[in-house]
């Protein structure tokens, strides 16, 4: 029984941003395409405003749910300093999709720590493809900041082992079931994210 190669996606952000939901949608879409999936996260006490990471491993058969250090194929950073925090988890030749939004915590506004300078520039290491998207801005332009999740999923949709449309349909179906009035808007947000990634 050999460990078969898996695609490793590390989703990171801050509690409340929808990191776990995004990871769940990714996992569901992969399952629909016949892949095995394991998804794990560490949130712990950091439910609100703390660091959240979710590991999604997709493959013919996934064993360990944990992405080994430095082996992520894709890092999806829902906040730019968080992407920087986890940036060395990406393998050389991997990809980073990052929301350029900055969420500054109390320890920074309180003067105990400083926010990294030019975090996006620091992310652009040699050998890593970086796609930067201002998901918060795009979402706000569409009328609801909460759409930034779908924008981010759109931005990473062309780096997955299944068609982008499959991910899009998963998002839309999720909203059709829970909040049908938001389905069309989320489709727009997904398309906007996908378009922005092709330009970023």
């Amino acid at each position, binding site marked *: 029984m050999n460990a078969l190669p898996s695609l490793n996606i590390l989703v990171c952000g801050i509690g409340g941003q929808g990191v776990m939901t995004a990871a769940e949608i990714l*996992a569901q879409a992969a399952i629909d395409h016949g892949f095995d999936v394991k998804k794990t996260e560490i949130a712990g006490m950091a439910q609100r405003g703390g660091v959240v990471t979710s590991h999604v491993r997709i493959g013919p058969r996934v064993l*360990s749910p944990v992405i080994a250090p430095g082996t992520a194929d894709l890092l999806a950073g829902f906040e730019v300093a968080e992407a920087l925090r986890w940036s060395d988890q990406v393998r050389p030749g991997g990809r980073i999709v990052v929301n350029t939004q900055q969420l500054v915590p109390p320890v920074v506004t309180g003067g105990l720590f400083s926010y990294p300078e030019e975090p996006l520039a620091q992310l652009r290491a040699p050998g890593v493809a970086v796609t930067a998207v201002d998901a918060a801005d795009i979402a706000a332009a569409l009328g609801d900041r909460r759409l930034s999740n779908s924008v981010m999923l759109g931005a990473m949709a062309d780096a997955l082992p299944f068609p982008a449309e499959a991910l899009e349909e998963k998002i839309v179906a999720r909203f059709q079931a829970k909040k049908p009035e938001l389905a069309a808007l989320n489709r727009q947000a997904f398309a906007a994210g996908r378009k922005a990634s092709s330009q970023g």
Partner: protein
Amino acid sequence: MNMLVKDEAGARRLLSGDEAIARAVWEAGTRVAAGYPGTPATEILESLAQYPDLHTQWSVNEKVAFEVALGASMAGARAFCAMKHVGLNVASDPLMTVTLTGALGGLVVAVADDVGQSSSQNEQDSRYWGRFAHLPILEPADSQEAYEMTKRAFELSEQFETLVIVRLTTRVCHVKALVTLGAREERKVPGFAINPARWVMVPGNAKKRVPLQLEREKKLAAFAESYDLTVEEAGDDRRAGFVVSGPAYLHLREAFPNAPLIKLGLSYPLPLGRIRALAATVGKLVVVEETEPLIETELRAAGLAVHGKDILPRIGELTADIIAPPIRALIGEPEPPKAETLPPAPAVFPRPPTLCAACPHIGVFHTLFAMRKKVVIMGDIGCYTLGAGHPWHALDSCISMGAAVGMALGIDKAGGASDARKAVLAVMGDSTFLHMGMQGLLNIVYNRGNVTTLILDNRTTGMTGGQNHPGTGHEIHGEEAPRVDFARLCEALGVKKERIRLVDPYDLNGLFRTIRDEIKVPEPSVVITNQPCTLIREFVRREPHQVLEDKCTGCGSCMDLGCPAITVRERVEKTDYAGRPYEATYTRIDARACTGCTMCVAACNHGAIVPVAGAKAAGSCC
């Protein structure tokens, strides 16, 4: 109702370990399930509450939950309870005698160890309970196994008339993976049959059952030799063979895909014969277990030469990257050329967990900080444990559920030199008070202690995500339930009526005066706060506030509150009237996060914080 109920047998669903266990408990025809919230086990009961045809409850604590499940088993029903590792410590009193009586209806406890300590006060290995209480332990590695083993646990329980422990870790509870579902099995409940020799554990009866307990353990050990939840996997690379249990199996398989191993589904009692057979065919025998060397120690005692914690860590999760290098070194395999990785990421500021904007605990810890030099503050387990952190530093202990009151009385009675001029406080939440705090308060009254107990009643079990308890007026399904009256409860425990004070924690001046008055009175007193958690339905958002730039003096008083909605607009180097340099901190309020609790209005001495003109209460949080 849970969408899963509609799923037909054979459907494959992405489920967390917790959700998979809930499904299995339901399918097993269980009639009663109980628990108390605790990470990472909370979602088991939350998920189970969505299934029909069984009674699911939040109990006041794990001991009670365990006893509720036990009673149902005594009546012949299949019964289940779930808790985190430290919860089983609480339930250990009945546990240690149930091992004598045994179970009638299938009785299963799922206990979740927080390996890696993501949200717990300790890291302990609950598999010790199997050795301590002579009980079988099943250890799943992922969601599918958690589902299968939980169903099989009920069968095992009935076959051997024993409680069965399903031991989980965070990496089983909170990992989602595919699970193939089955159908629910309906079972008749015969009812309780009077049988004192079986259920009345006075010494005369209990003594007769001790040998039965040991005999059962022997039978289970023999049964383990052929039990199909334990599996051997062949492998060509015989330099090392492995004995492994739980999620460590997945990590091990990833690191050593071609090694022979035995994976223990039933990890206690051990199938010594099967392990010896493996040992005879491999170069070295290595035990990979999280976290303590339990299997390893028993194998060594049985005369086998084994490796385990001599080369592997005894703390935390055993992921592939952690276990591979020491095992390679053991078998003399050179380290493979190191895969190229990126240079280390730059250090980024921490994001410690923090209290929410408008959290009623903010007012309490702001007030306690103001009295810091005059009080000793015994703390407890919940969101308010964050009061120990920045910027409040106003919580001096966190040990176990309900411990604050007991420790506070101990500090009071110790009469220490440095405490002579200080008041002793105990701080705990509503759910924690009902879990194990009531007894401590009764003990303070009975022993004439001089302690002021703060009950931070936010009408939910906050830290674990907002579960109901007897103080919320709702039960696990959200239906109405009798609601305990904390003030009358404290009065019944013997606290004088005039020493029980209800206070609005948003009213900083009133809160300060109330606590100050009560710590001056040399007898037991209780202060109960009454604002709900900001994350529950009862919380009402009000109009957001703002800082008027022309009135803000940069004193930074509002920053000391520790409200995450208040941030720094500008810092300016200035000199005071005596020519000494200082940094002025001008602030602003994030109107999207502010809910108009007005605590900062009271904290500002310059009238600079006012409602945003014309603003409506912010929408629901993202």
